């Protein structure tokens, strides 16, 4: 079914094409198939059939999750009535409402949703992918392959200088590198070699996190765990000979193990189509996700340039508000819902504990109790065992509720009920 057939009344079917069947694309396929009439065809295109649970990548290097467990078939998560095509997208031609595939085929659309996410680009940092260091002593864990190779290096590591490093913002799941540092502290402690390991957290920001209040809480936690911090680090290169990480202001940090998060960029086809900004993110209205340049293109998930965290939880909140907006848009009506940038994320802190952050475009991370009856109350921004369990429960929720487009018992818009803006407790 390609939707080229007239529907009996002389006009052809409405064609929606979704690029990417990851977190956002899969949720959208499910919610929009239910919401749209049968005179709509929905096509979703992805380059492979391996849907990866990316939040699990964090646990792979520590041997806490097996790589295989994190992969499922994309096709199996796409509902009946949606045409899944396993193809690579080469370009979008917005003037012609056409998607060009890598094999030269073309797919027409009336409405397009770009959900192609972002990926780490290690080749963007001079020296990093040099054979002498890359996946020998320098790793990234933002791909399953990288996380798996890092696991082997971690288990062979007997001591020395470890750098946990972020190249440049934005990155998806901006707390993941911090969590990595906490888990590494835990891991080496359990292996009884913590005293032989020097862990430094290296960030381009002026503190541990982008939001000031969370930054000071998380910074305190780093200190508690004897993790050093280097801030304002604008990375220039890796020196593969000396094994140092070098910054523009002349710092050279030696390493025995470098765990870096390379610059994260939008999909190459977005850049090649001229639809992206400097980093390949599509400029959109931050409240409606409609592409600034084209009324019939929306962008959901990490692919958009919205100023909030790039996270699966954010993609979920976006999808919840998006469905009604899309139905209005196709009828030429004003869009009823506005996305407020709502993000929440569990921050794994090691030692069986985690914290929960909750914020939006305008509000600093909140403290209080998270109103989610399925998990029971969790303290926002507080360290607790229950938050740790919440983090682990997320995997189950991801596959069984989020991907199927079921509503979570969490409001899309941020509720202030039971929450105290951080910094204002007592």
């Amino acid at each position, binding site marked *: 079914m390609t939707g080229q057939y007239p529907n009996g009344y002389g006009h052809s079917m409405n064609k929606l094409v979704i690029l990417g069947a990851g977190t956002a694309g899969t949720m959208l396929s499910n919610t929009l198939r239910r919401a749209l009439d049968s005179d709509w065809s929905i096509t979703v295109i992805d380059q492979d059939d391996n849907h990866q649970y990316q939040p699990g990548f964090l646990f792979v290097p520590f041997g806490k999750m097996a790589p295989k467990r994190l992969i499922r078939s994309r096709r199996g998560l796409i509902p009946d009535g949606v045409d899944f095509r396993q193809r690579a997208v080469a370009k979008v031609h917005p003037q012609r409402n056409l998607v060009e595939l890598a094999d030269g085929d073309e797919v027409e659309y009336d409405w397009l949703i770009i959900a192609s996410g972002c990926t780490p680009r290690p080749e963007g940092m001079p020296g990093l992918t040099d054979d002498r260091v890359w996946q020998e002593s320098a790793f990234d864990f933002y791909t399953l392959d990288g996380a798996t190779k890092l696991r082997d290096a971690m288990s062979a590591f007997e001591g020395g200088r470890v750098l946990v490093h972020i190249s*440049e*913002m*934005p990155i998806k799941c*901006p707390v993941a590198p911090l969590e990595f540092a906490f888990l590494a502290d835990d891991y080496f402690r359990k292996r009884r070699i913590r005293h032989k390991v020097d862990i430094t957290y290296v960030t*381009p*920001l*002026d503190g541990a996190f*982008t*939001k000031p209040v969370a930054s000071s809480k998380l910074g305190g936690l780093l200190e508690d765990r004897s993790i050093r911090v280097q801030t*304002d680090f*604008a990375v*220039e290169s890796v020196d593969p000979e000396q094994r140092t990480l070098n910054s*523009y*202001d002349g710092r050279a940090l030696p390493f025995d193990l470098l765990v870096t998060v390379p610059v994260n960029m939008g999909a190459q086809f977005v850049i090649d189509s001229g639809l992206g900004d*400097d*980093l390949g993110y599509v400029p959109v209205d931050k409240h409606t996700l409609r592409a600034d340049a084209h009324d019939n293109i929306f962008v959901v998930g990490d692919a958009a340039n919205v*100023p*909030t*965290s790039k996270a699966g939880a954010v993609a979920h909140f976006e999808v919840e508000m998006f469905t009604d907006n899309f139905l209005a848009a196709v009828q030429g009506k004003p869009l009823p819902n506005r996305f407020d940038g709502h*993000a929440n994320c569990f921050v794994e802190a090691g030692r069986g504990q985690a914290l929960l952050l909750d914020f939006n475009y305008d509000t600093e991370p909140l403290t209080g109790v998270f109103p989610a009856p399925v998990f029971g109350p969790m303290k926002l921004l507080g360290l607790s065992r229950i938050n740790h369990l919440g983090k682990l429960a997320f995997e189950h929720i991801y596959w069984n509720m989020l991907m199927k487009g079921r509503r979570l018992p969490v409001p899309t818009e941020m509720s202030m009920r039971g929450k105290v803006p951080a910094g204002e407790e007592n």
Partner: protein
Amino acid sequence: MPTNTIDQFTFEVNDEGFLTDRNQWSKELCEVLAELVGIEHLTPEHWATIEFMRDDSAKSGVTPTLRRMQTVGGFDVRELYQLFPGKPVKKMAYLSGLPKPVGCV
């Protein structure tokens, strides 16, 4: 919003001292601000970066990042560090009367 007065200049700033209204900026004010961040004399190289920042942000609505200074502006990042020691983007934004670039979330 606090108001700042230096010499004959009066302008609104945020709590970190960045101008909140780009229209209250002038070259003369810029020279005064430069001294405050330890730059005694603004050379043509300094002015080139400030002009780029102001032009680019007028079009895009946001303060350019270091990456954009490099890829779109064609500036050499090492040189920017020499011109504005320490935290070049923050200093350039400050002197250009623009908000600190969002490090993003």
